[in-house]
């Protein structure tokens, strides 16, 4: 029987993949388009090969959390639309959607990529809440990297709505004030099959891997969040190699962001 994992292993031994790529190659083309939804305060459409992910940023005025009266907040939500792949169903977010949202959320949050102090409008009373919705349009694998890239591009594209009297946002009037970003964080997920490491799996390869490590990488090469997935275990040497590879690939993806 054509066993996906076995096929992947046989090819990986030759440094190859089923679609002809090398182990460390991303699919082509990779594209980032911003401003694709005028109703969002910021938006982006990212394509990696046939994978398509959309990000939309909405800004709401809310009450600050009691423990951080001088700060705004951030929320990330992922919708794995049934539109994007026959394996997804309508209904409450699956654990896959929750994990994906959490990994991207933690990367941006822990690196303090958004300066939440600057989201404060009236201390203890009003602040901005940044809500990023990440939407799969066509899931052909590696949603992690595509969604992370889309989140960053949409944040970068977003501007605040103007405030009406009483600090109520006027969504029809956009200001030209961007979201205060301090860092650029991109998650890169490195996958493992047998002893081999690779990046950017397509749908089929996502059926056959043993383990994965998502690494949220800042522009200076430091890491802000990690998430191990899959049932396989890693050696310390493997983790080192995986992080190195993630840092290198984050740099590559960051170039794609710059070109927009």
């Amino acid at each position, binding site marked *: *029987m054509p066993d996906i994992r076995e096929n992947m292993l046989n090819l990986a031994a030759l440094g190859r993949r089923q679609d002809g790529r090398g182990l460390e190659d991303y699919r082509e083309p990779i594209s980032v388009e911003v401003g694709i939804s005028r109703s969002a305060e910021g938006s982006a459409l990212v394509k990696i090969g046939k994978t398509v992910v959309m990000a939309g940023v909405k800004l709401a005025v809310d009450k600050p959390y009691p423990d951080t009266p001088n700060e705004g907040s951030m929320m990330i939500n992922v919708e794995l639309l049934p539109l994007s792949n026959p394996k997804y169903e309508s209904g409450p977010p699956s654990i896959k959607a929750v994990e994906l949202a959490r990994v991207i959320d933690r990367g941006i949050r822990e690196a303090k990529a958004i300066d939440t102090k600057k989201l404060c409008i009236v201390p203890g009373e009003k602040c901005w809440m940044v809500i990023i919705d990440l939407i799969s349009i066509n899931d052909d694998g590696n949603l992690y990297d595509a969604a992370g890239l889309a989140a960053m591009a949409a944040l970068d594209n977003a501007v605040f709505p103007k405030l009406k009297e009483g600090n109520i946002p006027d969504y029809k009037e956009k200001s030209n004030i961007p979201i205060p970003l301090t860092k650029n964080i991109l998650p890169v997920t490195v996958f493992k099959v047998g002893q081999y490491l690779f990046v950017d799996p397509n749908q089929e390869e996502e059926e056959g891997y043993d383990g994965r490590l998502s690494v949220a990488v800042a522009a200076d090469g430091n890491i802000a969040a990690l998430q191990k997935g899959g049932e396989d275990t890693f050696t310390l040497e493997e983790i080192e190699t995986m992080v190195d590879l993630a840092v290198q690939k984050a740099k590559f993806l960051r170039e794609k962001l710059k070109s927009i």
Partner: protein
Amino acid sequence: MGLLVKEKEIVIPGEVVADGDAKPSYGTYKDGDKIYSAFLGLVETNEGYVKIIPLSGCYLPKVDDKIIGRVIDILMTGWRMDTNSAYSAVLSVKEFVTSRYGGREDDLSRLIAIGEYVYVRIIKVTSQNLIDLSTAEPGLGKLKGGRVITINSHKVPRVIGKKGSMVTLIKEKTGADIKVGQNGVIWLRAENPDAELKAEKAIRLIEEKAHTEGLTQTVEAFLQ
């Protein structure tokens, strides 16, 4: 006859394709004296008949079609298989040619496990699309190794070519072993991974360019 569009022209559902004494065939319907398309497809005429070759759409099981199915469940006396259509099918153990069956006590997953692919013939389709399968014919049976790809079933005739000429061309140029299911599921295997990839890409090319002229030359050029 009154063909109102060009031969091989692409039409959409509801488009008028002919009038007068033209006769409606597959993929069309007649209303008054006009013949309309019922699909997004290519117009083809033959001896006064007008038919539409759909450019997409799911496979509809037909008796005697050879297809590639994937085992999705194991039953008491056979296997339930996905047929890349709206309907699953049953391969009864009586219709599975093997010398390894140990009788009623035997565990069928020992013969074909869930997820494995089998090249089968459709032997029965009921009005409700209940489907029976068989491997009782040379060349049919379980598929080992290689890779399985899925294309649109309407493009299968182009992949096979006239009297099998297209698939023979790919086999010869790449050395790959290929089995093409009428349901659009294709199995291929070559010793050399580059050759296997090349064969897959050739099939993908045919799928993409199925509606264009000079397909054989295009594929030949690609395989050079």
